[in-house]
């Protein structure tokens, strides 16, 4: 039945080459932990991606309850945490995932750095990686404000003051992020929400696509 459906579609639009292109490649011995246990360091990139997927899924469920305005944001998170079935688990996954993803990302970067895997011809992918790193920091910073509790509020104030220290554009940057030169308030929360949920994930998906396409084109770096 499934085979028939697949064949029906494949017959018309020839989809086999599309997924074959992604699925068919050999995993070399030196990156395969089944052959060399120390090759587990090659898992860190994949695990980073795994946690990113967890973040996206848990985040999608969080937005079912979260209300991005200063009257209700905290209350909606409190309600989710205390009343909604499994709400605590979903928020917990997003909360802890935000830290775990940074840990995995740093382990992955250390692997690439100490193996010299960033060297020619892979310099471009290192640069893409650095951009991804900044996006992840931005996601952490904007996400931290969203529960609108006291710690989030004052941490954001400190973060915005750091942004203000950027030479020349610092003041404008702070206003752009916070919606006001001095107030951390209603505008700040809605802007951070939009940045956290739309702008940065969009940029992240684009960069991850480039990251993975480059890896497939260049192959994984050779053994040491």
């Amino acid at each position, binding site marked *: 039945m499934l085979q028939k459906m697949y064949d029906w579609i494949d017959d018309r639009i020839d989809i086999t080459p599309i997924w074959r292109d992604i699925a068919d490649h050999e995993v070399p011995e*030196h990156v395969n932990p089944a052959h060399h246990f120390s090759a587990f360091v090659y898992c860190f990139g994949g695990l980073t991606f795994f946690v990113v997927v967890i973040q996206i899924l848990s985040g999608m469920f969080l937005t079912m309850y979260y209300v991005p305005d200063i009257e209700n944001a905290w209350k909606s998170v*409190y309600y989710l945490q205390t009343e909604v079935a499994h709400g605590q688990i979903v928020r917990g996954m997003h909360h802890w995932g935000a830290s775990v993803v940074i840990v995995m990302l740093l382990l992955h970067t250390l692997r690439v750095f100490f193996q010299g895997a960033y060297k020619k011809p892979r310099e471009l992918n290192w640069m893409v990686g650095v951009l991804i790193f900044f996006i992840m920091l931005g996601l952490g910073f904007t996400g931290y404000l969203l529960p609108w*509790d006291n710690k*989030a509020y004052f941490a954001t104030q400190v973060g915005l003051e750091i942004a203000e220290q950027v030479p020349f554009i610092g003041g404008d940057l702070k206003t752009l992020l916070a919606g006001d030169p001095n107030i951390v308030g209603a505008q700040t929360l809605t802007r951070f929400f939009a940045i956290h949920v739309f702008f940065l994930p969009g940029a992240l998906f684009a960069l991850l696509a480039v990251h993975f396409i480059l890896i497939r084109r260049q192959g994984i*770096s*050779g053994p*040491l």
Partner: protein
Amino acid sequence: MHKGKGMKFVGDSRISAERKPNIPKDYSEYPGRTEAFWPNFLLKEWLVGAVFLVGFLSLTVAHPSPLEGMADPTNAAIYHCRIGTSCFYTNY
């Protein structure tokens, strides 16, 4: 590389006088035990993912994420506590 007796160094450093390019061999130079990604490798890979997921879920279940009192711009008082003391987290 020449090791041990008779090895020539640059000055007294440990850097060999013999220069050679520092470019690793391509892994096609090491033929042999590769494994097909689809489906063989992927079927083992999700085992690692499952172990990781169990660990991660244990963390989330054991430690509910913190939520302090609602933001109050007029109440910065508790943030004068010394960092590392528990009062940093007790504003419920």
